[in-house]
């Protein structure tokens, strides 16, 4: 069976900056969670916006059920928007402060003609119940709700059109841990009940390990590594994944791994280094990495990595050592 959503060689440019540079991945049919992980500026949100046609694209394809999403117009695009919805990080900016919760959700139902007018109020109530909110919230304004409750409203609004896939862009980053835990549990429940597929965009590796079967790691607009989440986190094939993994704080002392420091600041897409984009911060970069862009290649079952030394990283090479001697560091 083909994937529900396929992103092929996606390119997004802002002026001369290639914010997303040749990103490819597949989102299988639901119930399924795919994580898109990266730090600020990695291009993860830009990918999410391009998929739902909220941002510009300069090249590549997005296929939904075989249809070319980037060419859709008019009724075709409207139909696609019913199939794929997005939930943003900050519900304060995505909910109209002057609109009551009920009106916000009802607007979607009417705009897309989901139910007959006289059934709208009833459907709004059902949707609020579905995200575990009191239907009485229908008559409240966003500011009368907590951040977690507002995010539930945003999710209810996305569910209103009966989507097959969701793009969740950092849905819990603005919430504190207890609210986050409840939203994550709810996403898991909804995904099974509605057979939803979702692309979960986050910087939090712990969140993808709980909610996503597979994960794509982005670095500076390119895929660094992709594969089944737990294998990828247990045995990263890319030094960046390994460093990212080691930086995640853990409550339990025995779960902590010794941190692999990355030198330098996260780079900017405005000045992309030659060769491997990660080489200026990579603890095991060799000359080849400074010259030759590594292809995203298969490194194991279901796994791909864009690293010349992926096999050594998978084999457990020590990244806390300065530039390794295995490949020599001689002049090119």
């Amino acid at each position, binding site marked *: 069976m083909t994937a529900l959503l396929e992103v092929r060689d996606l390119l997004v440019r802002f002026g001369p900056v290639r914010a997303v540079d040749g990103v490819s991945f597949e989102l299988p049919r639901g119930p399924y969670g795919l994580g898109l992980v990266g*730090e*600020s500026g990695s291009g993860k949100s830009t990918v999410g916006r391009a998929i739902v046609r909220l941002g510009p694209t300069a090249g590549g394809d997005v296929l939904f059920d075989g249809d070319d999403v980037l060419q859709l117009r008019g009724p075709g695009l409207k139909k696609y928007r019913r199939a794929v919805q997005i939930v943003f990080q900050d519900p304060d900016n995505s909910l109209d402060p002057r609109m009551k919760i009920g009106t916000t959700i009802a607007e979607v139902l009417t705009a897309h003609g989901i139910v007959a007018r006289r059934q709208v109020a009833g459907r709004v109530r059902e949707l609020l119940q579905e995200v575990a909110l009191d239907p009485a919230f229908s008559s409240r304004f966003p500011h009368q709700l907590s*951040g977690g409750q507002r995010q539930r409203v945003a999710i209810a609004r996305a569910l209103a059109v009966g989507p097959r896939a969701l793009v969740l862009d950092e849905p819990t980053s603005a919430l*504190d*841990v*207890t*609210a*986050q*835990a409840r939203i*994550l549990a709810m996403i898991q429940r909804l995904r099974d009940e509605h057979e939803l597929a979702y692309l979960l965009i986050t*910087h*939090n*590796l*712990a*969140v993808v*390990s*709980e909610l996503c079967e597979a994960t794509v790691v982005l670095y500076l607009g390119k895929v660094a590594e992709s594969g089944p989440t*737990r*294998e990828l*986190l*247990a*045995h990263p094939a890319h030094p960046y994944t390994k*460093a*990212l*993994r080691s*930086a*995640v*704080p*853990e*409550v*339990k*002392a025995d*779960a*902590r791994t010794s*941190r692999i*420091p*990355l030198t330098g*600041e*996260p780079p900017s897409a405005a000045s992309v280094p030659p060769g491997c984009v990660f080489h200026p911060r990579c603890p095991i970069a060799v000359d080849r990495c400074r010259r030759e862009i590594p292809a995203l290649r298969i490194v194991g079952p279901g796994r791909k990595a864009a690293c010349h030394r992926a096999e050594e990283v998978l084999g457990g090479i020590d990244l806390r050592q300065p530039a390794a001697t295995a490949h020599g560091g001689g002049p090119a």
Partner: protein
Amino acid sequence: MSLLEISDLRICFGTRPVVELERLEVDRAEIVGLAGESGSGKSMTTMAVLGLAATVGARVEGSVRFDGQELIGLPQRVLQGIRGRRIAMIFQSPAMAFNPVFRVGQIFLSALELHGAASRGEATERATTALRSVYLAPDLLDRYPSQLSGGQLQRISIAIALALRCDLLIADEPTSALDVTVQGDVLELLRALRDDKKIGILFISHDLAVVAELCDRIAIMRKGRVVEAGPTDRVIGQPQDAYTRELLAAVPAIKLAGVSS
């Protein structure tokens, strides 16, 4: 005697108490974590320590002793000699803590001149040294805040605290807005301040995982009260309070079950 001793602190808006803190201490060369959800009173507590609670309309009763001196009730003029110079603070959003129209160097130097550097020459020297100890190049001083990343600005905040030679650093969610790899660097800097400069640090965060990794002792706050406090290993390992357990259970952890090692 601890460096900072808070006792029977009560902060009210009108008649409504938002913080009722029986006891919280921070010693020299120690990092104490104050953890809790939004609205639990963590940040109000720091405002009271700095004598700033009145600026947001709150009334403060009780005792905040710093290095033996009672801070509650001190006139602002006297407080200004302590705040900034001996007690420094870094905030969650470094971009908001820097005035965008001044170069970072001007902000840095005027802080030093305001708080005791003898001359511009001495201030420049102290700034340069402090920047090196947070692994930043001194030429960053010529840039505007918007030209620096969040991680760089947060390190500059720490450098200012260092250059002021503060005794106590209050850090309010200093890494919550940063990427996880940058967060790691900032946490390491804070450890270095504790170990090398013997600075006492009050670390405010809602992220128990960060608190657990960094702090020597933890106080868990809920609705203005400390529900549990103690050495980190004890609070994390054998939480006594139901709320602490709930908070710990909510922290997402990387799950690797079912993967062969």
